[in-house]
């Protein structure tokens, strides 16, 4: 527990000085805020931007940040030093993952507030985000574990991130994309948030998110078996 806390603490200190990661955390909440204030159109559904950006946030931030942190620590050999100081791999992953998850949840709170969600809706919104962020986190951890350095993490992470974060947006305009996108957690997050206010949520979406999470976890385990953390 002490080690998990230490890793968590280190990550907070580091993020404050790491602009790339900081931007990942605040970009979508900030953009949602600006757009909701600035763009007012007649036929636009309620919370249009918040809902769209929330699903993009889920697909992008945890995945990119988690893979970037892991890959950078490998590249700089800092992870090796940690592991040789009696920090267990599981402690390291819990500390780092827990940190990224918490930071993204903080961003989600901002998104929820910008969207004007209240009471049970706000709680449901956060619950959906929590699941999506966790799934995204596992994907990021798998990519970071697989990569030897930051270059590799970026070149694998960016296409995967594009897939997860832009499909929900494209699926609103194209029926074919809509069908395919349905198998991914980020699209289901968007659907769930959309349905939240109206006619209740479908079990199917939760199942898809859960399956995504399980698949990502499998990828991570495979990557870990092959490369370990060093």
């Amino acid at each position, binding site marked *: 527990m002490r080690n998990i806390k230490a890793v968590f603490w*280190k990550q907070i200190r*580091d993020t404050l000085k*790491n602009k790339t990661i900081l931007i990942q955390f605040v970009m979508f909440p900030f953009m949602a805020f600006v757009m909701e204030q600035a763009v007012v159109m007649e036929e636009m559904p309620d919370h249009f931007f918040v809902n769209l950006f929330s699903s993009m946030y889920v697909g992008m931030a945890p995945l990119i940040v988690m893979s970037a942190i892991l890959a950078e620590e490998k590249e700089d050999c800092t992870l090796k*030093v940690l592991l*040789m*100081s009696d920090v267990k791999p599981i402690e390291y992953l819990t500390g780092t993952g827990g940190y990224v998850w918490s930071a993204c949840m903080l961003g989600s709170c901002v998104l929820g507030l910008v969207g004007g969600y209240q009471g049970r809706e706000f709680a449901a919104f956060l619950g959906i985000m929590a699941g999506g962020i966790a799934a995204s986190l596992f994907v990021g951890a798998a990519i970071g574990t697989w990569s030897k350095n930051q270059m590799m993490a970026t070149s694998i992470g960016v296409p995967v991130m594009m897939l997860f974060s832009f499909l929900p947006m494209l699926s609103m305009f194209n029926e074919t994309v809509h069908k395919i996108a349905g198998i991914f957690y980020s699209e289901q997050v968007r659907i769930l948030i959309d349905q939240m206010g109206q006619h209740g949520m479908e079990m199917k979406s939760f199942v898809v998110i859960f399956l995504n999470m399980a698949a990502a976890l499998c990828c991570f385990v495979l990557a870990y078996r092959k490369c370990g953390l060093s």
Partner: protein
Amino acid sequence: MIKLTDVVQCFGEHEVLRGVSLQIRKGEIFGLLGPSGAGKTTLIKIVTGQLKPSAGQVMVNGKNAADLNGSMYLRMGIMMDSYGLYGRLSCYDNLRLFAKIYGTAEGKIDEVLKKVGLLEAKKCPAGKLSKGMRGRLALARAVMNEPEILFLDEPTSGLDPAATKQIHELLLAEQEKNTTIFLTTHNMAEAEKLCSHVALLNEGTIVEYGEPKEICRKYNHQNQLQIRLYDGRYLELKNDCRAVGTLQTYLEQGMIETIHSTEPNLETVFMELTGKGLV
């Protein structure tokens, strides 16, 4: 304390270590010398369990190095040539992270920073330090939890003489506390000054082992006069009566710029054994 038996390490076709056997006693400073690419870093990696040797056995504190685990690592301080520092965190925060992990009192941080001469730079991000300063920070981290064994890969490379002296004092103070120190170096003078035993590693084998003084005595046969002339020529003469004639001529002509006898030191021994200098 540390015992290596016939350690072999191959990277693909390339055989880097070809049967290295060594023994290091508790409380001594052991120096591993060798030219660049000799396999010094590789050997440290094997002894610290970061690399599994292709063949041979390594025992550290009675345990096989390959299965070193957490509690053993807590009693070891390791400084590798890739320092493994968090570039954006300050010196202080870099150490604070490990103080949290080791459960060391945070008051200790300033103390070790002072010992390595980085107290003024404690707020500076590690990534902005010079190479020598980063090395000292990595060293500070290695000694912070008062380890029983210290592994140091080139602890003084890139340091000026004053900082080198400071590090030497720190290492000798550690030895006072009965810490075993395993270091690699290119610096012969350093090895002579610090180490109770040294091993010369060349092309994957130990070509000489012993106390520095003893090794020098053993190779005293070189015994030459080295003369540099004003016209740029450089001569090496055997230090005996046969040199008299030549010397007299040059002396009479006033051509001698410098003249030295070779007191053998580890450097010359090394040159002789390997046919090449240390880089």
